[in-house]
């Protein structure tokens, strides 16, 4: 994870790919739901939420689509087993690690950086437990995973990586902070 050299009011780190699985299942199908619970050990999160347990984060994308992120090497074998079992049910789990590229935005102006392109009420989210949003940033799709109010993980399609770096350079330039007069 190396820091991108930017004259910016937040710190931006390029993480690159994170080992991840796209999961799709019918949550009324007991078998596939139990496969997830047994292998991953995390409840299916509700809308806008992401639940984390020892290096695995399960994010809600829609009522039949979830994104599973893995930050610990030793979970790899567990994931492969899960993938096999899942694909035997009516659901599906597919490796999508190369699909996205992740960035980390750090700093207390992190939320303000996103306000330059995300048309959502970011302040309203209770940042207590992790929130996960899939929305738009300017003209591209973005995933936002709130670790805390000043530490936000974002990901875009890998083909938008350079566009995203340009976006940080333009939109988080020092001096363009969002400030209120009082």
């Amino acid at each position, binding site marked *: 994870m190396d820091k991108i050299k930017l004259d910016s009011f937040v710190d931006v780190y390029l993480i690159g790919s994170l080992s991840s699985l796209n999961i799709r299942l019918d949550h009324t199908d007991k078998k596939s739901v139990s496969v997830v619970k047994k292998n991953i050990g995390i409840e299916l999160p509700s809308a806008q939420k992401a639940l984390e347990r020892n290096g695995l984060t399960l994010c809600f994308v829609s009522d039949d689509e979830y994104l599973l992120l893995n930050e610990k090497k030793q979970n790899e074998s567990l994931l492969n087993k899960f993938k096999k079992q899942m694909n035997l049910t009516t659901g599906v789990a597919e490796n999508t690690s190369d699909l996205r590229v992740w960035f980390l935005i750090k700093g207390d102006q992190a939320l303000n950086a996103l306000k330059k392109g995300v048309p959502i009420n970011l302040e309203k989210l209770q940042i207590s437990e992790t929130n996960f949003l899939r929305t738009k940033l300017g003209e591209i799709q973005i995933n936002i995973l709130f670790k805390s109010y000043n530490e936000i993980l974002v990901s875009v399609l890998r083909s938008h990586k*350079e566009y995203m770096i340009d976006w940080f350079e333009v939109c988080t330039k*020092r001096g363009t902070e969002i400030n209120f007069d009082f």
Partner: protein
Amino acid sequence: MSSRLPRGGSRVNREKLVDFRFNGKNLKGFDGDTVASALLANNELLVARSFKYHRPRGIFTAGEEEPNALMGIGEGSFFEPNIRATEVKIKQNMNVNSQNHWPSLRFDFLSINNLLARFFAAGFYYKTFIWPRAAWKYIFEPMIRRASGLGKAPKEYDEEHYEHIYHNTDILIIGGGLAGITAAKALRDRGLSVMLCEKDSVMGGRYLQDCKSEDRERYKKLYESSIEILKKSKDIAVKLNTCVTGIFDHGFVLAYEENQGLNVTTKKALWKIRVKNIILCTGAIERPIVFPDNDLPGIMLAASARDYLQKYGVLLGDRLVLTTNNDYAYKTAIELKQVGIDVPVVLDARASSDGPLVKEAGALGIRILFGKCIGKVEGKRKVDAVGICSVNGEGTIEELISCNAVAVSGGWTPNVNLWSHCGGKLIWDGDLGFYRPDPDKTPVGKDGETNMLALGGCAGVFSNYDIQDQVPRKINQFASRLKIKSKRYIEPNIFSKELERNAPPVFVLPYGASKDKQKRMYIDFQNDVKVSDLQLAAQEGFENVEHAKRYTTLGMATDQGKTSSINGIYVLSQSLGKSVDTIGHTTFRPPYKPIPLGLIAGQYTKKLFKPIKKTPIDKWNSINNAIWEPVADWRRAYAYPKVNENLEDTLHREVLSVRKNVGLLDSSTLGKIMVKGPDAGQFLDLIYTNMMSSLKTGKCRYGLMCNEAGFVFDDGVVARLNEQTFLCHTTSGGADRVYAWFEEWLQTEWHHLKVFIINLTEQYSQIAIAGPKAREVLQTFKSIDLSPDKLPFMHFMETYIDDIWVRVYRISFSGELSYELAVNSNQAEELWNKLLKAGKKYKIQPYGTEALHILRAEKGFIVVGDETDGTVTPQDLGMEWIVSKKKNDFIGKKAFSLPHLNARVRKQLVGILTLDTDKVLPDGCHALEDGKAIGHVTSTYFSPTLKRSIALGLIENGRSRIGSALEFESSSKESIFAKLVDPSFYDMEGSKQNG
């Protein structure tokens, strides 16, 4: 002669001089001066020329409602035309220039229009310039266009940094005057997020300027304490220098932040705010009375003359006559008198008035004449004297008063633009003479409930006492309506009751003005719309207010009628003999004040304009100087020219390298959609025209997708990974469209099918290796066995190249022996380089999309988007074989059975070989049969393989014409003749690709 007082001016810092240039003259102002106040301080009364008659124009107001003082400011890439001098603060060495005159501001050649004004009444250009016909194009229009427009456009590209900022708030208070501040205090600590936008650089609005000197201390204390309260409360955020410019549906608000003072680099930001409720406190704008010669420089709105005195210590003139119909304007006379300015007379249109301000003016020895108004103004490019006449009668002059400034006030008009942008209606207040918001027809939010509350000046409530009395009450009602549970807000009212300012409304004086005078009574200063113009519009039948506005261009200038539309509507109503409220008013539209186009574009221009998608092999492509071609959002390598190799040679080299040796193509942009589930086969049978459920695991099958109307819209190879999983490949341009198409059918029509899809387009990259030596190159890797029986045509296998996992498809778009290698994107560049190294001794070369187009055209394969344009069916393409006869239902089946797709003459795909083999048919040229077009060319190239030109085309009953020759028209007048053949020119039996 306007000048600067030795002391005073709350906005200026007299220690800091600022040099600036006006029309080349070096002038001085103070830090904090606007261009307007600085010009007035230097006795620059003449500042502009009007649009139509080029009459001399002076500064008329002190705010964004200014119709006259428009300047070109700045240099080079920061130059900007049509800037209101009243809004921009002067900066060191700022270069200000007046506009729309030649050779100079003082001597403007085009002011001859003014002499010929009688011939240029409203709408004259509809009645003339008709004969002779060509004259309009060659003489009249060029002449009019050269004289049109105000400022000059910038020459250089804009270096400014603009930005869009999204924000959400429960309550947005627009305007930081007394009403806004009181509303903010009343709304704090209620668990609501409140945002207040104030367009000025300081809060307070008018109530500090308009107060009497003895109240100043009391008001100042209230102001300071209020600001302290707002600063301390967490849930209130205040933005200065931010003007709300537009209200849209569902609580979407645009605000333009333009802070000129602070050192922030973002000088210009467009705030996109979502709000639940809006508290409108935008105050009111003073309205002039229309009198003869009222457009001379030196004539100004009464309150604005006072603003210049108090904010900038600037005097409009040292002998000022006030003409008004209300008590409130007397403050201007009083305050100017108190600084020693001679106020020879106050002309009051009313019969009498005993208000305190009138008494105070009398006590100061100011002569007050009731029932009088201005009958004429003398002076060339400035005011020398005014003629007094009675308000009734046709305006004969009773007395001439020499003076060099005139202040005028016809009362105040509530600022209702923002109320009206999104559904809010207005009602006419007959006795006060203005439109104000109709409390029963408010703008509504998404839920149909009212979402805007107008308070203070913009609701027609002007006096401080009334505002302080009503605002807390209205806010508490508003809070209870929104079921916001919290204590009622009460605030002591420190203001004293004041007399009503607007007295009986007066719009145009004298009432019986003669025809000649009416031609010198200006309503819209910038577009030179006179009282006589509106009378002419009414006379000619343009009775609807919208017709009158368009016919006379009233209120169509850059101030959008802020100080002129009410007076214009009054004159129209008098001419038609109808009451003003039956006339109605024109529509208020965003933006409230003009905003830069660059601001609307925001930061998403230049580098961030329309995001480019780059493949994992993009870096290699750019290093090897690929020419780029935009395909959907991607950029793809079009060709890889060598140093000073022309494009034609590059394409020939790349095509022949595939035909003779082996070529490498970056086709990562191919759409890749995984379809998984027990009903996956059944779903794909419904989507594709041919059977997919019968596809065996490990095999591939080419498929065509049509829409319900039977027209082809995408194609690609489908591979069956296992019993429940298919991988559908689509065209690059169609990837997202097809994914959305699958989701639409699965979610809204066939939601009983147990199928899930995942868009894996960017998870895998795809590298095509094609040519006679393709297999040999791959065989150099020990770990891989591609013998024909191991991997026959239209099959795939998963294997490893060294340690890189790949899925090798034996499919071919070029017609050669070819493999497409799917690899996880992170290892794509590594594999690409491995293949190049391995293929070196086989003379491997990369080829681009154009070479691919030539290769597939030689083979006769179609490209969706070239051969098809959304009106072409599989049958037209001669692909009946791909339309399943057995399937019960699929998208397009009904359409194929329709009479029109079969009976009528259809354009069919054919190959076209020109008789002269060197002649290449032009792109998109048409086939002719006795003069009528019967078809067009869809793809046309010179084929390096066959050393002749080839083309594909869609020709009426094409297949039955095969063998015959046809005439093709071309731009160079002589036709080209060509023979129609089967649409395939190379290796028809497919021995190469199947070998």
